[in-house]
């Protein structure tokens, strides 16, 4: 398939672009297979806007005869002979929540452009996406892809080796399609047993280790729901695996991200939960976390509320409430807090799962590690954590992030779990401005890249798919790029101080705030606050210099 089939009009001149925080500019619009390119014609102040078509969530065209506006904006353009032609307006709503408006002379051109954008931004063939074409100038193909591998991670954690081993039972993805080829499991469990456990867990996601708490040797495991079904099937290997995990200790916890009722209902569909009688040393805690469509709708409502400029205070707060987004943030953080509490305060190992174990499960296991583990709070540590717990652990990025809040398409598998994670991390960052080694800018960058990216990191739904498409050979890795010296500085937190303690966030409603930096990103007010962050950075650098010179 050729992109050019979809491009009827590649170039249009005299287009007026309006974008937030900028004055309107007039210039040339150009559509390519992956990009929308706009450059103004003023020679002195050459402004360019390069937008990945993949970043476009919705295109709205209106055939307004707005010539009057058009010429009042640019009175000097009056002597062009377009006065007789009509023009059209395209509003482009991006996945990073930016809204752009293009005024295009000529109805036909306008419709052509709109159609090209609509088609090209929704192409779902991964192998033809931009990351496969992107060649950054400063990276060579020999750079290893990714920051770490399960093997390296295991090797580095020597304290694990006594009781845990690296299993390659999933070498060819035959046991679990969404797991990486190597996972960490109890030493006392053989690969054959693992295969049986995998059959007993949804999607083959048998319990694997995701975090080892050095302080007391407890662990966090994650998996998916057991397939007990209506007639309470059992799997002795599964029970054994969990028993081995707690060893001599008298108890372990299972945090189920569904409510007790939902877990009961899941049995009718072949799923289920670990019953008290079969797993007598494990105590189940149910925490209801919203998922799927509900979460996506929540995002849509929130973005809609943020886009509304009505001056009435009442409506703002009720819309904010009505979106329920902050409630989801609160639930996620308190569940993660509960998980961390079990491990750190109570000294018991925990297994986390919901149903598939690829969404809420990863969300709270990631957050809990940030709360507990100082090594996850550096810039590098955090990116490694995301690589491990989201990318390698099989969060289906492609399904979850194919559309954002503006899209008119019917919600299918979209769900802003990763965005919710970033929001929770932001809440942590706001409550502990010194404890995290990265900046808000990093969270914003990740939020953007998850939906549309030059890099291959967030492509596909699992390691298996990435392997099949040779993503690691043919694309570049975002995490590596973020750690480049040129990029690194803006993503580090100048106030960061290593802190060995757990950071316990407050989840009181008054302590949680709307993430203005993301949801109101394109407003002047947020710009002010960004300037303040820059200011802080400069102050710290200056004082650092002074301390050096003293």
């Amino acid at each position: 398939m050729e992109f050019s089939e979809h491009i009827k009009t590649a170039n249009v001149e005299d287009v007026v672009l309006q974008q937030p925080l900028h004055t309107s500019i007039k210039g040339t619009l150009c559509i390519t297979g992956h990009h929308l390119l706009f450059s103004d014609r003023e020679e002195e102040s050459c402004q360019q806007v390069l937008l990945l078509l993949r970043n476009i969530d919705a295109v709205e065209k209106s055939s307004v005869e707005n010539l009057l506006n058009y010429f009042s904006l640019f009175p000097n353009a009056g002597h062009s002979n377009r006065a007789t032609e009509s023009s059209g307006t395209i509003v482009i709503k991006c996945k990073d929540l930016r809204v752009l408006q293009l005024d295009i002379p000529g109805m036909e051109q306008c419709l052509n452009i709109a159609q090209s954008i609509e088609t090209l931004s929704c192409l779902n063939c991964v192998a033809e996406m931009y990351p496969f074409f992107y060649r950054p100038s400063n990276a060579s193909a020999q750079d290893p892809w990714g920051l770490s591998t399960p093997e390296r991670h295991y090797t580095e954690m020597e304290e694990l080796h006594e009781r845990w081993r690296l299993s390659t039972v999933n070498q060819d993805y035959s046991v679990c399609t969404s797991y990486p080829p190597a996972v960490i499991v109890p030493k006392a469990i053989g690969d054959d047993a693992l295969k049986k456990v995998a059959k007993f867990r949804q999607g083959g996601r048998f319990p694997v280790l995701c975090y080892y708490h050095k302080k007391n040797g407890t662990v966090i495991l994650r998996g998916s729901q057991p397939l007990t079904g209506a007639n309470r099937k059992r799997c002795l290997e599964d029970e054994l695996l969990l028993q081995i995990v707690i060893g001599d200790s008298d108890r372990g916890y299972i945090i189920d991200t569904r409510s007790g009722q939902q877990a009961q209902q899941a049995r009718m569909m072949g799923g289920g939960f670990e019953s008290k009688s079969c797993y007598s040393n494990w105590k189940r805690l149910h925490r209801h976390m919203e998922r799927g469509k509900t979460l996506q709708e929540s995002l849509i409502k929130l973005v809609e509320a943020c886009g509304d400029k009505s001056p009435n205070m009442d409506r703002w707060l009720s819309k904010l409430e009505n979106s329920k987004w902050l409630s989801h943030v609160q639930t996620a953080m308190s569940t993660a807090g509960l998980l961390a509490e079990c491990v750190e305060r109570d000294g018991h190992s925990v297994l986390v799962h919901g149903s598939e174990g690829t969404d809420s499960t990863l969300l709270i296991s990631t957050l809990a590690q940030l709360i507990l583990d100082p090594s996850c709070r550096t810039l590098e540590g955090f990116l490694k954590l995301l690589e491990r717990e989201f990318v390698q652990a099989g969060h289906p990025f492609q399904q979850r992030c194919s559309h954002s809040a503006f899209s008119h398409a019917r919600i299918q598998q979209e769900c802003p779990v990763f965005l919710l994670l970033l929001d929770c991390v932001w809440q942590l960052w706001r409550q502990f401005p010194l404890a995290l080694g990265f900046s808000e800018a990093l969270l914003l960058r990740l939020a953007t890249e998850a939906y549309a990216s030059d890099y291959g990191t967030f492509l596909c739904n699992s390691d298996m798919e990435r392997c099949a498409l040779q993503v690691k050979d043919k694309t570049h890795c975002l995490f590596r790029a973020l750690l480049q010296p040129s990029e690194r500085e803006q993503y580090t937190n100048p106030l960061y101080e290593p802190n060995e303690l757990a950071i316990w966030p407050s989840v009181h409603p008054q302590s949680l705030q709307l993430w203005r930096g993301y949801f109101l990103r394109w407003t002047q007010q947020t710009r002010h606050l960004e300037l303040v962050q820059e200011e802080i950075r400069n102050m710290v650098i200056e004082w650092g210099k002074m301390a050096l010179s003293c």
Partner: protein
Amino acid sequence: MEHIRTPKVENVRLLDRSKGQRKASVGTFYLSATHSMFIENNTETRKETWLLHSMISSVEKLPTTPTGSQLILRCKDFRVIQLLMQQEKDCFDVHASLLRLSRPEKYSELYCLSFNPNINKEERQESWSFIDLMADYKRMGVPNNLWVVSAANSEYRICETYPSELFIPKSASPTVILGSSRFRSRGRFPALSYFHQDTLAAVCRCSQPLSGFSGRCQEDEAMLQAVMKSNPGSAYIYVVDTRPKLNAMANRAAGKGYENEDHYTNIKLHFIGIENIHVMRNSQQKILDMGEMRSPSMTDFLWGLENSGWLKHIKAILDAGVFIARAVADEGVSVLVHCSDGWDRTAQACSIASVLLDPFYRTIKGMMLLIERDWVSFGHKFSHRYAHLDGDPKEVSPVIDQFLECVWQLSQQFPCAFEFNECFLIAIHTHVYSCRYGTFLGNCQKERNDMRLQERSHSVWPQLWKDRADFTNPLYKAELSPCRAVLRPNTTPYCFKMWKGLYNHVERSTPPCQSTADFLSAMREESQQLEEELTNHQERISALTGKPIMWEKVMVKRRTWHIQRHSGPDPPSPYTIPVTSPAQDHRTFGPANQNATVKDPRLTTSGDQPMQVKPLNTDDIFSDLESGVAGLSSRSSSAGEEAKDRETDEIAFTTA
């Protein structure tokens, strides 16, 4: 003294609302004429809690239970103190005593007038001259050929609630002033609040005209004309009526009302719609009620905030300020502001406009002057509004709370524009209510003069000035360009947040989270000290060697800032096991000792010293440094034993 029925109760439990009964500290409760005190029995900490009686807004006695009788003291700074006494009789006596003590009937019962004023006579006299309003008027460029000081109100002849010295348009004759004041509610005629030197436009204030449905007054019309004339070249003035139009119209039936645009040439009338003191009182009460909820869900919180209407009112006040500031700075048009009596909403609108217009009022000293001018001198009824004496509860309203909150909201939008931090605003708030100083006593200048407050009490401002290091915003940039002149805040609803620092005492009682501002302050202090040390050493070296030295750079390892290594509210509040899950015992997770370690702050010098100079004693330097930040590090995390004592509370913490 005669009101104290029992001066001392032993074995009293002081309950912390966020921690539950079992964590209560046991101690002795004392009552004095001015304070309630609670002193812990624990000999190690011996923590003392002092409470001025004038800070108590209500005393509630709960029904006696087997554990004892509970007394709830709600304070004007929104703290809530719960005491549990074993004997019902003690509780009854304390309750009765506090009821009387917290509602003084005469000014002389108040703390600031209860001690001998001549102990620090000089200090006292000095304290009152700290704020010089005339100097501030001079700073803004008056008197000049447009505005002059008027003696019309000397000895408070025409308006009792105005200051004796006022600035009025040069062209306004005494007859015009007298006539205008007779036509204005309570005689509060138009007078200058702020003069904007760049545009020559002015902000003036007054009360509503006594126009009724058709009344008019030539002198008042001439007065407004004079205000306009004092802004050369302008063709009209804005008259900002800060009330909702409906309220203003209703006032006409009572012979009051607003300016009729047909009678006044060259005015443009503009209504803002700030609600009256009764609406505001109720609105704030709803915020406080919300704070008393044990474990609100996100929905409870947002609904509560919305239903209180509080942020809407804050926005209305800020909108008034923005309107005035725009008229003055952008259009160069003078503005006359009034409400009904011109001492509540008018004070809010005028002072916010000043903050927006003039960077000086965003400094610590400037804020003091502004409050002294627009609030204290112009007769804001402090004693009535903040219930200094037992009086009509309908007169009480959080008017200045709202002004302070507007300033706080602005500081959230412009973090670099204000010299002071949130603590400064909270300190002002506390002292408006506390009556520890004479500054806010009484309802107008005349009353304060009659009471001879300057001879009998101290002013609060020098005290706050002395503590200014605690009140300084490390991010303040006096010369940052966007903040240089006029602030142009965004008043879209999403820009307003709840002022957690003022209202949320539940959260404040747990150790604070990390704060960027604290960090920056500590760092700045430290680098200042380093700099001073450097200069000292340079001087000493040059004295020793007899010639100026070229200082070569010594590499010093970046020190680890040893400030506040605490990690958050400990124990974390509501991550609890949900009550909803079946067969669940309500256990909470055990404690974990996580005493924050404070690292040895000693700097290690590395590299070669360029010079061997004997008197350099590094220990001296660094012991100094330690003390510089000791205040911060001492706040570090306490052990988390509380965790196990929270069972009873935690059951209630289920999240939505």
